[in-house]
């Protein structure tokens, strides 16, 4: 049984005012939902300061065109097979260089967190892009809670390994579980989001339910899905694609139109949902977030540290 249901049946990009208005209407019923877990993204507070005003990609496109090899290598495989995934109960183990390690139920992690709406640009390393209205909280809020030690320089993430439910994990297309990592300052940056929903829906399974990372200035594969473990480390942690093809996928994987993927140019991309005859769009440095996160990489050679 699908755990989510699309409300958007038309083929057009949903007009922003339509779903913004609907949320206002729903605010009236918020009292009824007060007891529901914070996963219900209706409590989300829009954060226009961190949002683009570009039109969001259709919900259908965001939820039917996914790279989530845990459910198969085809773009439509995750939408087809991810309904098998059990996302409740869910817990995340927090380990490594911090004062408060431990395993926490997702409900406990969400307690007291401000769930915001952030409309982010999303750029895949395969040269296509989306604009996604995410819901979630800043990763920094969680890291502050666990109190990193002075040795914590990186944050490592791990996706669930459950081949009984994740059909793609039954073959070794890539080593399981999928792992990713960020430098501490990247992880603490206010743009870095732990997302629990898209539009007004809780996170669809194929998009990384129930909770995933979103790092909008990096290629999509850094935004690891269905997270079960977060480790604070002293050394740079392994990252799956980087291990597989270090010449094609760097640890930083910052969106950079000047550094080509060995097999294709990264200077421009196709906009998902724009049709067969749409123009390619030029790719922006750090996916358009250079003002916010550029200083993190001051003095670094981004051609070398790609």
């Amino acid at each position: 049984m699908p755990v989510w249901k699309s409300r958007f049946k038309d083929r057009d990009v949903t007009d922003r005012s339509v779903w913004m208005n609907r949320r206002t209407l729903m605010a009236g019923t918020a009292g009824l939902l007060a007891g529901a877990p914070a996963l219900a993204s209706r409590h989300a507070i829009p954060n226009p300061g961190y949002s683009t005003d570009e039109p969001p990609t259709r919900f259908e496109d965001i939820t039917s065109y996914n790279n989530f090899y845990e459910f198969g290598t085809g773009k439509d495989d995750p939408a087809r097979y991810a309904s098998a995934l059990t996302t409740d109960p869910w817990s995340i183990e927090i380990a490594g260089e911090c004062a408060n390690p431990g395993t926490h139920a997702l409900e406990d992690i969400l307690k007291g967190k401000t769930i915001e709406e952030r409309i982010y640009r999303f750029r895949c390393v395969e040269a296509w892009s989306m604009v996604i209205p995410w819901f979630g909280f800043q990763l920094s809020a969680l890291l502050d809670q666990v109190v990193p030690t002075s040795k914590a320089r990186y944050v490592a993430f791990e996706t669930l390994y459950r081949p009984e439910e994740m059909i793609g994990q039954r073959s070794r297309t890539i080593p399981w579980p999928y792992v990713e990592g960020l430098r501490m300052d990247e992880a603490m940056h206010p743009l870095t989001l732990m997302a629990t929903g898209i539009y007004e829906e809780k996170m669809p399974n194929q998009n990384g339910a129930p909770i995933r990372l979103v790092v909008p200035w990096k290629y999509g594969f850094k935004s690891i899905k269905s997270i079960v473990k977060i480790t604070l480390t002293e050394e740079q942690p392994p990252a799956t694609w980087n291990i597989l093809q270090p010449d094609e996928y760097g640890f930083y994987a910052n969106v950079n139109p000047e550094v080509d993927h060995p097999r294709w140019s990264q200077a421009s991309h196709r906009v998902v949902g724009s049709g067969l005859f749409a123009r390619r769009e030029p790719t922006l440095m750090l996916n358009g977030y250079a003002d916010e996160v550029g200083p993190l990489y001051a003095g670094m050679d981004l051609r070398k540290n790609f």
Partner: protein
Amino acid sequence: MLRPAYESSDKWRGAVPLACGEGYVRDMIAATLNSATRAVPPWVLYPVLAFPGLWLFVSQVLAPGPDPVAALEHGLGKYALQLLVLGLLITPLRDVVRINLMRYRRQVGLMAFFYVVAHLLVYLVLDNQFWWNALIRDLTRRPYIIIGMVSFVILIPLAFTSNNASIRRLGPIAWKRLHYLTYPAILLGALHYLMLKKTWQTEPMIYVAFAIMLILWRVPRFIGLRRP
């Protein structure tokens, strides 16, 4: 080992035996197919084989998916590979299972070329959008693009000599030699698909396997072990 009575006893020979063998069924199927295809003139294959590509194009115009350019580009490329495989399957089909589709081989080959050209046009016009810098980099630095392009170039003389006049002009032996170029073309085409993927994936490997098997099957004939 127990053997069926009809094999060990002359008494039964000719009565039941052949009718029970799988060869009989095979020949019946082949004969039925061969007589059925007799009614189908070869030109019919042009519209029939063009249809999936046109359908893909129209559907991506009228109801585009998330990334219609990729869908069309990859879809046309796969049809091209499938038709190249089909073209190379025609001889083994005749020699092994006795299904004779030889008179359609030219149409299959030309339609494979049609799909290669369509695939290339989508890459140039809709994907690359005549962005010359990227195009030049693709053609000079990216092995999978180079390999795909070499495969296309190899197919050009084959397409232009796929007519009776060319066979007459070149003579059947030279013409046949020229058309051996199909083997490197299909191998490079399948390799082009395999190299495009981020990981080793089953689907492109199936095309590579088909290409290799269909070439290997011809080796005994080339070295004179089997009659051409």
